[in-house]
């Protein structure tokens, strides 16, 4: 596939992929990589040392181990919420763009309503109502982040639908299902991918914000939750930077890598952009 080879040859995308893979591998093999049990209590407020690379927190847990486990929670929430959001968005966008008519009006009306509601307050409200829990967080983020995907997919479907090649295929005798499978989906797919990667980044950031505000699952050690505890339990006041800087850096790096990847997918899917970049 030409898109895949483009992502491979793009240097920035390569950097993004490497960073992301480091985090993903860290999350998958967390059990092997953690030097200590993240739930075990050592001496609280230890400074970094050889045994505790990033010291310990207020109840004496090893921060480095928490950080590795945090990758698992943050990435899970990001990818699952991204999957839900993009899934809904793609479904709505395809239906609205392909079927048009009243369905389009209703779906786009709904999309606009969800789109204008500020995301963070809504998510805060819903998560307070549902209570803490990692699956609730995933669900809430997924249900709030789909409208922009729906809009983008719909407009792309509209432009593909009116293109000469869809008209030609129709004249050849192709039905709606055929057009969707053979022409609309392949032409929308890169956009779906790019949108998915960006939504994952946004979902991770949203999860961190929620957790930082204390609305996350206290039993799930995400990077946002670490920041929350560092803030609430005196990490900032004591200037224990080894407590609050690493999770912040991890979140930023993850989002940076996802953004780089999504850029290169967009470039790869648009031949004009690709040519401009090669120059």
């Amino acid at each position, binding site marked *: 596939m030409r898109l895949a080879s483009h992502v491979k040859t793009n240097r920035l995308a390569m950097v993004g992929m490497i960073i992301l893979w480091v985090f993903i591998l860290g999350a998958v093999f967390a059990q092997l990589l953690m030097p200590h049990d993240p739930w075990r209590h050592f001496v609280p407020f230890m400074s970094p040392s050889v045994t505790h690379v990033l010291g310990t927190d207020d109840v004496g847990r090893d921060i480095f181990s928490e950080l590795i486990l945090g990758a698992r929670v943050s990435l899970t929430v990001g990818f699952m919420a991204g999957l839900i959001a993009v899934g809904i968005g793609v479904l709505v966008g395809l239906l609205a763009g392909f079927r048009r008519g009243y369905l389009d009006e209703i779906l786009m009306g709904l999309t606009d309503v969800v789109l204008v509601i500020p995301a963070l307050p809504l998510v805060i409200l819903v998560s307070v109502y549902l209570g803490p829990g990692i699956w609730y967080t995933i669900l809430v983020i997924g249900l709030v982040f789909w409208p922009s995907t729906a809009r983008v997919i719909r407009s792309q479907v509209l432009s593909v639908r009116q293109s000469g090649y869809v008209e030609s295929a129709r*004249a050849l005798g192709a039905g709606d299902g055929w057009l969707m499978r053979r022409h609309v989906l392949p032409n929308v797919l890169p956009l779906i991918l790019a949108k998915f990667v960006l939504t994952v980044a946004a979902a991770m950031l949203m999860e961190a914000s929620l957790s930082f505000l204390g609305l996350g699952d206290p039993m799930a050690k995400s990077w946002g939750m670490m920041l929350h505890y560092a803030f609430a339990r005196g990490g900032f006041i004591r200037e224990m930077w080894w407590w609050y800087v690493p999770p912040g850096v991890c979140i930023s790096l993850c989002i940076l890598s996802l953004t780089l990847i999504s850029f290169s997918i967009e470039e790869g899917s648009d031949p004009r952009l690709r040519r401009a970049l090669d120059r």
Partner: protein
Amino acid sequence: MILEVRHLSTHYLVRHNPLARFGHRDHLIRAVDDVSFAVTAGEVFGIIGESGSGKTTLARTMLRLCDSTAGDVLHRGRSVFAMNSSELKQYRHSVQPVFQDADSTLDPRQHVGAILEEPLLIHGIGDAATRRQYIGGMLEQINLSPSFLQRHPSELSGGQRQRVALARSLLLNPEVLIADEPTSGLDPLVTTQVLALMLRLKQDHGLTLILISHDLETVAYASDRIAVMYRGRIVELSGGEDFAQRASHPYTRFLLGVERRVPEIPVLEGVHEHIHGAEDGCAYANSCPHHLHVCHSISPELRETSQGHLIACHAIAPE
């Protein structure tokens, strides 16, 4: 009569949004207006008209790619608009278009092999091996080597693209080919090549060809009968053999360069012309050097003035 068009009209309503509608009335664009003609099996039927004369809309309506406002299109006596989906699929199997601008009619993501296989797959023709064989044979007929199968449309020249589009339509072995500006955007040499190829394939496959173009020479070169369209209507229809000698409608004579058009009030190009010119009377009246009083109020009927020669003009008396 393989394909018959009866009093076909396709009008577009250009709606402004409710707020803008205070200033502008909704426009009715009569892209195709009461057009009738019949195509017999095996002939080349040419349609000439300037851009905005409704040629493309006529072709699209005949293919049922857009809805008609009035009238009917009959394929072997069966109404195209009354067909259910399986009948329509069968109709599209036997009546195929070649659109202008093959640039956009080929999916940029498919390679030529996939593009050519598509019609066969849609109609479930043959297994993989026979399909490859058909495609190979067709490539030979359009003078492309098999290496082109792996290329994408963006890697082809304009003439090659148009030949691929032609091959895609011909793979279904249709009875009728509706070619809408098949040579637009191609240089004169390639135009001649594509045209010659089409005529040769027409002979080989026993096709009926409807050739639509703005280019008088292209149509006159190839057609057995020629219809001249002006603003959605057919103004003259006559045989292709002595078309230039017999042409008598003022607009046709203008196209042939034997007569001048009266400089009219400058109007916007293309489709916008319909907005103002299509109410009553002959659409050409404002530009016609022979216009009579009646031309501005009653639109002339297309009537036969001599054997096989139809004209819509008040100023010309039947022979």
